[in-house]
């Protein structure tokens, strides 16, 4: 009797396993199509697109990857994305964690007002201010620069808020021990709080990257030179660069997302934890 129930449960479990894995594989088909297309001659990408061969590199070649490197300065565009995101994330971690910490743990005049400003600005999306911000940055000489793609996004109300809510729960005993030893606020923060807050910093890093690495509208407005353009815009302009060669476009797409996927697989645990704090803890 119970042996039958166990068998039934096991069968159900493997049926579920099969259904979920098949659904996941189907969900990934567009990505498989891109990867397969990136490894076949340009003409075959479209001509084989209407059959199962669309998902298979029928005549494997690396020529598309070579073409991308030859036709555009891919290395430069990749480097641009790297610099911009490093600036946004690095600067943001410093500036927003300090503000979040002060707001959560210190008592001072103006604290309530600053917190109110942060919470109010949390609501303003980039899109709502992009047009005036564009003119502002133009006046400041920010067109076609890295800094105009970094500076506006370093201070981030959402990151301040995430740090703020994280530091509210930070154990006071650790700080007090340092305080008793006579350490300043800044030193306490750097030497005691930061080393014990890796999850908060990881979460903010991940959320910031997810929000900003795909940014398209802003660089579209503020840049016109390939020297400072990031990957998403690089791909979109490569798409319109004649001659239209789908194999090359697929290769560009693969090359641009491989770093993100590698980073994700390496930090998967942090990813999930980071996104979880954002969605659940609030």
């Amino acid at each position: 009797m119970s042996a039958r129930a166990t068998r039934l449960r096991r069968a159900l479990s493997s049926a579920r396993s099969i259904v979920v894995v098949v659904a996941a594989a189907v969900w990934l088909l567009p990505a498989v199509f891109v990867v397969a297309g990136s490894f076949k001659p340009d003409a075959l990408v479209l001509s084989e697109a209407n059959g199962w061969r669309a998902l298979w590199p029928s005549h494997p070649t690396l020529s598309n990857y070579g073409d991308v490197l030859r036709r555009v300065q891919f290395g430069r565009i990749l480097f641009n994305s790297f610099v911009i995101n490093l600036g946004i994330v690095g600067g943001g971690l410093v500036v927003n964690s300090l503000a979040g910490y002060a707001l959560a743990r210190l008592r001072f005049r103006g604290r309530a007002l600053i917190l109110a400003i942060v919470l109010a600005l949390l609501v303003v999306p980039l899109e709502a201010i992009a047009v005036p911000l564009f003119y502002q940055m133009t006046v400041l000489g920010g067109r076609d620069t890295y800094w105009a793609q970094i500076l506006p996004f370093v201070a981030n109300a959402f990151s301040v808020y995430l740090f703020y809510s994280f530091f509210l729960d930070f154990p006071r005993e650790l700080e007090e021990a340092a305080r008793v030893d006579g350490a300043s606020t800044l030193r306490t923060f750097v030497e005691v709080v930061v080393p014990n807050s890796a999850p908060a910093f990881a979460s903010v890093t991940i959320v910031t990257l997810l929000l900003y690495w795909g940014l398209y509208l802003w660089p579209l407005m503020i840049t016109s030179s390939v020297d400072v353009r990031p990957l998403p815009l690089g791909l979109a302009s490569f798409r319109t660069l004649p001659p239209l060669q789908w194999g090359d476009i697929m290769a560009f797409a693969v090359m641009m997302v491989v770093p993100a996927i590698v980073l994700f697989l390496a930090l998967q645990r942090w990813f999930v934890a980071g996104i979880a704090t954002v969605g659940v803890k609030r």
Partner: protein
Amino acid sequence: MSSVRRSGRAARILDAPLLLTLPALVGLLLFVGLPFALAVGMSFTNLRLGSPLPLEWVGLEQYTRLLGDETFRRALVNNAYFAAVIVPVQTALALAAALAVDGSFRGRGFARAAFFIPALFPMAMVAVVWELIYAPGAQGPLNAVGQALGVWMPRDFLRDPVLAMPSLMVLSVWQGMGLQMVILLAGLQAIPRDLYESARLDGAGAWSRFVHVTLPQLRNPLVFVVVITALLAFRLFDQVQILTRGGPGDATTTVMYEAVTAAFTRQQVGAASAMSVVFFCVVVLITALGRRAFRQEASTA
């Protein structure tokens, strides 16, 4: 006791809490607060770059003009249409995927990664790639699927007035679902196991446990997911700019696409600012509704 020594004064100033908040505060005021104030201010003017007309305060004229502008009204309707479809569909799919990959089974790692990976792709990349998937004629992959299944005849998805918008929705859901799934999955895993146990002891079946335990417990993550999906729907721009340029006709134009076109191809900064403000009001409305749904939960819990 005497931690304040020679360098006391400088250290104390550097130690002032206000100073720690200053870099973030200045950045926020300069790059969010100021442009926002500028947007509101310019929306009351006739500012147009390169225009011979003198700069004038025109009051609400930009707004009344927007109300009468058929293209802008269509843009608002398109955004609402996009939100109305994408919010329920994407949330339901994300919830289904989260439930599917919760618990332990063989292939779980693969399934989770496969559902999530598109969320790592920038929307610009997804748009460029899906242009080929939507390729017109019998050669297009999606048309081939439709024909093989005998469901539809080859069509030109992105240039069809009726299909263009749903086509943008499909690729947006494909890209966006994974992130929502992870948020909901985290929510699922935060539900105390004993709630399920006691429901089981009360004789609740799987469906009843889902309705009476899972859904109420998942309320906050669900509200969060619904709100960010709705906000993304009103921010719709990248896909439109890359794939349809608002067309055919005005079938896929959006508030942001209109604002950017007004500002950059027609140099109408005043009009673009008014559009930005309208967009912002929608964002505030959605956020306020979301916060209310959030708070209710906190008080009943």
